[in-house]
């Protein structure tokens, strides 16, 4: 059951803050996120209380990543998720059972490089 058949495009999700997954604030919607190629971002160049800033970080991280190398995955030859990741790889991530976490460079604003 390929999810992209319903919408016509492959689905990717990038989470950068706790705004969206703290039940007091919003619905984490894990059911939907499990159907995406998912990447947890760590914008740790913002402090823990700067959730609004972290929330916004997903936008320019994604847009900036069009110009950066696709991140690699530790101890794997597979590529990670970014705006530049190929469609075949995104489909594989969508249909997988795990999400990814962008660990390296957590204290650096510029993604990859």
């Amino acid at each position: 059951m390929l999810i992209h058949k319903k919408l016509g495009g492959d689905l990717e999700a990038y989470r950068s803050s706790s705004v969206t997954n703290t039940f007091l604030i919003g619905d984490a919607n894990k059911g939907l996120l499990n159907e995406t190629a998912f990447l947890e971002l760590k914008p740790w160049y913002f402090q823990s209380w700067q959730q609004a800033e972290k929330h916004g970080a997903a936008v320019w991280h994604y847009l900036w990543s069009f110009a950066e190398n696709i991140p690699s995955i530790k101890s794997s030859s597979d590529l990670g998720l970014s705006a530049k990741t190929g469609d075949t790889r995104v489909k594989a991530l969508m249909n997988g059972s795990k999400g990814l976490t962008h660990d390296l460079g957590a204290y650096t604003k510029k993604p990859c490089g």
Partner: protein
Amino acid sequence: MSNYTGSRVIIAGHSLGNQMAIVVAKKLKDGISAGDTNSKLKPKRIALLDPYYSNGTKSYISNQWTGAKARGYVDT
């Protein structure tokens, strides 16, 4: 964009906008299937950027949660 001739459409939505991105993608797909939307507009990618769904049912979507509504558009 009815005259769009490009090869790649990406729809990205941030926060609440992710819900709009999903709806737009669905409407494009439905329109293409119905034959009244340029097929070149079919998105290759739908990017949800720190997507947000509020808690609770909403009367304007038949008392569903927005997250459930979005899942309904995505699930086959």
